[in-house]
């Protein structure tokens, strides 16, 4: 005779509050880490908005790229191609080529995120910008648990979103009348330097950055967009060849 058990739901109980809840200290650390980056990307967001206002694309559709694409360089690329009357396919191809480097970020994060719940692995990529990748990989070496890293990543990512989307709208509105005084746009390369320098420990890491930079410029001047990707892959390959493999 079959025994019907009513215990199944209990034994398969999933702690949803535990999996969805954010850790307070991780949120605070994430916000503290992302704060200077927010200050740096704000002018970038306004500049993207100004480019939208300046283009032939309608203001609303141009702004829509901020929440939908959520990537400054790919957004600008799409608007630029559409703005000069380029085809839809060209705009799409350029935007994706510019963003192709994020597939490498995805590969680098796939193992650290492998124990994360599926909802997080579906949501996290939406926020995956260069700066967040750099911050997250920096924190992953600290031996934190999954919930901490999830809270940290989401806090920083959502903070960027809350700044970026309204700031692009602001740029659409006020971009054309902005004064050209303080070279605030120099914050972008400066922030990349700030994220890069702590990662340059040892010769393989240093070589990765130098080779990637050189190849990126060499390729980027002939084939726009994919220079980042090919440069980055070249740098990673050279560094791997230098480190001599597992000992």
């Amino acid at each position, binding site marked *: 005779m079959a025994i019907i058990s009513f215990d199944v739901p209990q034994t398969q109980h999933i702690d949803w509050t535990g999996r969805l809840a954010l850790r307070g200290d991780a949120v605070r650390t994430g916000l503290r880490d992302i704060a200077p980056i927010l200050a740096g990307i704000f002018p970038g967001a306004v500049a993207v908005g100004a480019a939208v206002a300046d283009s032939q694309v309608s203001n609303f559709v141009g702004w829509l790229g901020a929440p939908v694409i959520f990537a400054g360089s790919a957004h600008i690329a799409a608007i630029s191609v559409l703005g000069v009357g380029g085809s*839809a396919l060209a705009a799409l191809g350029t935007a994706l080529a510019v963003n192709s480097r994020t597939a490498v970020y995805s*590969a680098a994060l796939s193992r650290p995120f492998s124990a994360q719940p599926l909802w997080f692995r579906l949501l996290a990529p939406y926020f995956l910008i260069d700066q967040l990748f750099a911050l997250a990989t920096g924190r992953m070496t600290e031996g934190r648990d999954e919930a901490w890293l999830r809270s940290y990543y989401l806090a920083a990512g959502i903070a960027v979103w809350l700044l970026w989307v309204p700031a692009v709208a602001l740029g659409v509105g006020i971009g054309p009348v902005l004064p050209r005084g303080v070279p605030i746009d*120099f914050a972008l*390369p400066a922030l990349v330097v700030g994220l890069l320098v702590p*990662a340059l420990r040892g010769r393989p890491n240093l070589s990765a950055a130098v080779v990637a*930079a050189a190849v990126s410029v060499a390729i*980027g001047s002939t084939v726009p967009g994919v220079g980042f990707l090919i440069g980055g892959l070249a*740098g990673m390959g050279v560094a791997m060849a230098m480190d001599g493999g597992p000992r």
Partner: protein
Amino acid sequence: VSDAIVIVLAGLGTWALRASFIVFAAQRAMPSAVDRFLAYARPAMLGALLAGVMATRVDGVAVTLVPELAGLVAAVLAAWRTRNLAWTAASAIVVFAVAERALAGIERLL
């Protein structure tokens, strides 16, 4: 195809690129060589990005590079000494602005 559809497709494509490995390869064990390769993603991709961003600021005349290089050196020194992003950005912007004005002053004198 309307511009709005292009924007939406670019958004979907961007998510797909970012999600590619995180969503679809997360449970697969990767060869150790791939792990070693990916361990260098941060310095390599940021190096490529920095070079790409700097390249867009160059308009072909070597002398106009002086403020950029000065700002970049300031950023590297500040990042190395302080490990603080706010100090890094602030130092770079100040040095860049001063160098730009100094260069403009020298050009007026000549």
